[in-house]
């Protein structure tokens, strides 16, 4: 969560790209996203981890596409029409992250971000950087690098299953472990 902290102290506000998964809004620091592209189909890869949708062609480069729904243990969406892909770069290698839809870039003052979210969300993977208030919405800020890294799959899965329940029930205090 340091990257957000640094952002905050230097500028007092942060820019984030928001996207949705199952009608829940998520945000990611714009610096983590190299570009956004439409989903144009992938080539499935046999025996790949289940959350890897396949590989796709990004201007002559073969990049893997991660299905964030699967990564978070959600049910697959019916129809892939509007899906968007955010391209992030990890260790110089671009990775596509598929979400229901990519929404907009928001600039939020840091005061609107609650980084002490431990009582809101059960987050053992530390992929959640905070929860931001925007209009009447809540936006979960993610560190995408942590989400896509090969390790702690289980953690992220558990955690984000948690997001769903908890964000739906909003501020209801849920402290029990999954």
């Amino acid at each position: 969560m340091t990257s957000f902290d640094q952002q905050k102290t230097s500028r007092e506000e942060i820019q984030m790209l928001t996207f949705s998964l199952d009608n829940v809004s998520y945000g990611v620091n714009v610096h983590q996203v190299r570009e956004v592209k439409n989903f144009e189909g992938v080539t499935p890869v046999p025996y790949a981890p289940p959350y890897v949708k396949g590989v796709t062609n990004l201007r002559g480069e073969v990049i893997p596409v991660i299905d964030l729904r699967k990564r978070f243990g959600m049910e697959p969406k019916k129809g892939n029409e509007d899906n968007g892909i955010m391209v992030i770069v990890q260790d110089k290698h671009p990775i596509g992250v598929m979400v229901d839809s990519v929404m907009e870039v928001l600039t939020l003052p840091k005061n609107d971000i609650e980084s002490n979210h431990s009582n809101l969300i059960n987050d053992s993977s530390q992929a959640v950087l905070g929860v931001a208030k925007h209009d009447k919405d809540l936006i979960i800020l993610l560190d995408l690098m942590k989400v896509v890294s090969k390790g702690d799959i289980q953690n992220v899965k558990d955690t984000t299953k948690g997001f769903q329940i908890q964000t739906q029930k909003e501020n209801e205090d849920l402290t029990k472990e999954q």
Partner: protein
Amino acid sequence: MSLDNDQYRELFIEEAKEHIECLTKSMLTLEKEPQNRDIINMLFRSAHTLKGSSGMMGYKDFQELTHKMEDVFDGMRKGNVPTPELITVLLECVDALSARLERIQKGLEGEIEVETLKKRLLAGITKPSPEGETKNEGTESNRIQENTLVKLDDNEKDALQKAKNIGEKGYYINLKFSDDCSFKGIRANMILSKISKIGEIVKTVPDKKELDEESLKQGFKLVVTTKIDEKELERCTQEVLEVENVKVTPIESLGEDKGQKTASMLGEEKTFCVGIENGKVTKVLSDVHSAQTVRVKFDQLDKLMNWVGELVINKIALLQATADIKNDGLKRITENIDRLTADLQDLVMQVRMVPVSQIFDRFPRLVRDLSLKKNKKIDLVMEGRDIEVDRTVLDEIGEPLIHLLRNSIDHGIETPSERWQAKKPEKGTIRLSAQRNGDHVIIEVEDDGAGIDPEKIKKAAIKKGFATEVELEKMTREQIINMIFLPGFSTAKEVTDTSGRGVGMDVVKTKITALGGTVHLETQLGKGTKTTIKLPLTLAIIQAILVNDSGQTFAIPTSQVSEIVRAKKSEVKSLGKTEAIVVRDKVVPVVHLHKVLGLECAAYEEDLELLITYLNDENSKIGLVVDSVVRQQDILVKSLSETLSGLKGISGATILGDGQVVLVLDVGQLVSKSKN
């Protein structure tokens, strides 16, 4: 002056690596020819350069050790004969340097334990032998000649060049104090302070910090830049008392072909590198000027290769798209593009070619160390060191070759007494050779050791459950021998730290197959073993067969397919768990692509196509059933990213002309996977 700058560091690392390689190589030669002055001089120069550049970068430990090594080499120049023990210690020093260099490269801490190595170096030095002393005199003139030259490193050359640019001149001053003169150090410092008033001092020999009686006996040499002319400079230095002899020579040019002396003065280091790079340890002065080279990062070369590959694929798409259009103008253009891309591709391939000596030259050291450890006497004979292969190929074959060599040393070559009993020369020979064969390079590792005993393999196979006695009965000798390529198979009686952990040969096989190559093993009991590796010269662009199965397209390298057979579904017979088909009166087991890939069978048509592929050897064929074969074409293989690494059976992906991404399969791995 510490230049802790990434750019300089990179340069330093690259240069240091070359010198370290050269040190190792020269030291091994020295072991055989302890009195070879050329080699000793080369060692001295390398150590000296390393000392200078590491000092400049502020790596004190590195500098100290190389300084010590330089002293040792200097001792050899004066006639000390190196003992094998000393060479072993020196090699250890080189290892320490190389490990330190790696740490520097990775930005890690950890200095060399200079003191221990220093002590051991001191212990290793022997007193000069009387024979050595006479030698010394004989080569004295040689030495003096060399001493009149001052070696400049790149920074110093830069300084000269800069001075030249602002209208100053470079001078080389050689002065000598009278023999009985005292306080040479102080006098030398006086000269330095005088000159620094009228110009810049680029370099002094001995170094400024080491100006003492002893070092100055040989004389005092300076390289300076100044506006004043040589007469003035001479007069100025002679103002200091007891300076006996002053010689001022202007430095005309920096490495240009003017002035033989300056060329050898300034170009020495370069010449040396060129010599090594060509695989010959010879000085080719003229080459320094004629063969102009540029250092390019491998990264950039890879990118270039990638783009050219992309271009080739788009060219294919263009040719396909325009094939039916009847337009002479367009046809000419596409033909031109076809030719140009082919030329470009050839050139890029050539640029990426490096001689196998880059890998081979590490092996004498390995063989030396291992054979010493094992108390075996082994000669390593290398042939075809100048054969060139693509860098990617070379990067990948190092490990398999080390495996093979270790196998030969550990299990192949017998101990001297065993060899004596077998009426073989005491010294075993391992022959490592490379040769070009069309688009392939063939690398052979051959030893004259004990060979592989098929009976031992049989026993091990039964013990480890790879085969039953009945199955073994039916196998040919070749098939039995080839079982050592199976994962987890190792016939070594003892587990050593180098080989025999049961991962040897299958690693070799896997790696080579992944590179699109083949491994072949011949062995004769009591006579020796020969492993032949056949590899494509280049990896990036390969010929592949595109196949369709379960509605998806896959690419299979043509090198893995021996023939394509059309068959009907009904011809595939079930044999309980497995299936087989009869091809030209031979039963060939088959596997279905969609099954090994875990895909659902979309359309099981009556007409099938069968790709026949060889597994371990020509006798074990296997058929891969696909829905249809699309076509054969050149593809550019791209690796799958980290997220998808380690998927068995999928060696990469490629992008077709229409932008579609297609997976490249490794049939051997797929089939062995399906067996498990």
